[in-house]
């Protein structure tokens, strides 16, 4: 197990390094720089001085190592879009709305999806099953900005029950959380249903019936436990993906979250902020995958304790 974890950590460190290089190169290969402003062109001399001040005149690999050196000490530099602040202070405000709305969206959507999936698997080819399939298909095919738009249209514009902006008062959270919840709900409904059906068809389920277990015990002790293994492992990555804010949801509901900064930083060629966001996201996904892998190994005896022993 320790070796397993060390292996994972090593591979994650490698992934993180490669991804950081790729992002860095990508950011620097987007045409245009932060100080090429079209409306107020800077005199070339001034522009060069500023570029030198920010180190933008040096070879890329020097810039990269300087930057990563800072990052390792928690210094993500100064955001070009708000030169008075640091990137850390700029983003420290923004993650709260994303985490609250996205996080609650997953925490509400995933359990509902699991329940729907279980109900569908246990009542195959009944209306519950068809409902679950419809929900899963719609949830996964309708883009989240369309869902958001429909929610705003129906509940804010027509019915006028809820405000169309999503921050900061809690009653404004309902619509964006609903928009966020659709994806984990749909994903989990589909995942759970197919994992349950898959397990229910395994020969060991017949053996469990043959030894006289009740259907309830078979489903809740054995089938669910076996089906949960793949379900547990998708949770954390999904949580990270959603709780870091969706550009679409945050712009539809005017939420001042991380998602918006992804866009604004690209528009303003704000490398430091964009880099910080991307690296954070990469790191969080890496950690999420490590934890998922460990959980998977813990839940799955075939991996937890190796081969044949007796």
């Amino acid at each position, binding site marked *: 197990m320790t070796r397993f974890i060390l292996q994972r950590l090593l591979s994650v460190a490698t992934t993180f390094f490669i991804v950081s290089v790729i992002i860095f190169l990508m950011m620097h290969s987007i045409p245009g720089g932060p100080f090429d402003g079209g409306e107020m062109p800077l005199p070339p001399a001034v522009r060069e001085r500023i570029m030198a001040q920010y180190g933008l005149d040096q070879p890329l690999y020097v810039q990269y190592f300087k930057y990563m050196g800072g990052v390792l000490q928690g210094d993500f530099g100064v955001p070009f879009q708000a030169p008075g602040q640091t990137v850390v202070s700029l983003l420290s405000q923004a993650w709260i709305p994303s985490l609250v709305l996205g996080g609650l969206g997953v925490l509400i959507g995933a359990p509902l999806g699991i329940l729907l999936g279980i109900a569908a698997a246990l009542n195959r080819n009944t209306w519950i099953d068809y409902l679950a399939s419809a929900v899963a298909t719609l949830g996964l095919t309708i883009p989240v900005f369309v869902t958001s738009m429909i929610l705003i249209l129906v509940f804010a514009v027509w019915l006028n029950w809820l405000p169309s902006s999503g921050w900061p008062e809690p009653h404004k959270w309902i619509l964006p959380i609903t928009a966020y919840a659709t994806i984990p709900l749909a994903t989990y409904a589909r995942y759970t249903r197919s994992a349950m059906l898959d397990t229910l068809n*395994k*020969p*060991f389920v*017949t*053996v*469990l*019936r*043959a*030894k*006289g*277990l*009740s*259907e309830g*015990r078979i489903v809740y002790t*054995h089938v669910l*436990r*076996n089906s949960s*293994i793949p379900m547990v492992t998708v949770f954390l990555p999904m949580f990270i993906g959603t709780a870091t804010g969706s550009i679409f949801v945050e712009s539809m509901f005017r939420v001042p979250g991380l998602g918006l900064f992804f866009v604004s930083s690209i528009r303003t060629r704000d490398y430091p902020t964009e880099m910080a966001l991307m690296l954070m996201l990469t790191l969080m996904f890496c950690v999420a995958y490590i934890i998922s892998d460990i959980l998977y190994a813990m*839940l*799955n*005896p*075939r991996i937890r*304790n190796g*081969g*044949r*022993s*007796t």
Partner: protein
Amino acid sequence: MHLVEISDLEVSFPQADGVVQAVRGASFHVDAGESLGIVGESGSGKSVTCMAALRLLRQPPARISASRLNVDGTDMLAADKRKLASLRGRVAAMVFQDPMTAFDPVFTIGYQIGETIRAHREATKAAARSEAEALLARVEIRNPSAVADSYPHQLSGGMLQRAMIAMALSCQPRVLFADEPTTALDVTVQAQILQLIKELQAELGMGLVMITHDLGVIAETVDRVVVMYGGRVMEEAPVDAIFDAPQHPYTVALMGSMPGLAPGRRLVEIPGGSPDPSNPPSGCPFHPRCTQADARCAAEMPPVVRTGPQAQAACWRLT
């Protein structure tokens, strides 16, 4: 009253393109302490018959009917879910063909045996667990406590089959259905497992239904034989009679080219293919392959005729 009584059992599976008639009117019985073998080529309905006896087939899709389907005096067709669950494992247990897929991969063997015990009577987890170890010891596993702590993937097929037998016997059932319990195992292990089943059956005075392809197994383990073909019972007779004086042409063909009886000997191939279960032949299902068939065999299913004490067969030649 017989321990297991099956009369006119019919099992079919409706499919998009027709109905698979897996069992087409099978009848037999098993008494306490007696062992019955069911032989027949692949697809003849052996497994489906036993699964139907314990109502282990999902309905739908399966459709089951019988004029009688009794296990230990309980009408299995009328029994509700709770009644069925309480009978299974306690009164009638089953050992399956493939031990490698028979256990839940995420629980230990000890847990799964203990779970069976706890499903049928009050016992603490610890008590069930130590009973599981005792059962494992009884099926001649040398390190029962290590095996009880193992997960299925850590054990060999032979070890798992012993464990499945231990699990099946954990509540001292009155009848044990064993569906090709040795087919998936190494030849050396097969003989041991058979010996074990035979011994335990005698010791517990159980009824035993042994499904197999292996005539050697039949010769060694059972008292009486049911020969199935195309979802029907062709012949039923004490084991000696089946080998020494088979009556039905199908049984004769099965035995015919057998020079001697040794364990591991399989049913021989008879020219022609098995009947298509979704479009079975009219009359006697064996008539297309039977050397003695005539027009009547193709037109009408022969009646069951007595051929000796405890023996009967369904063939126009014997009427």
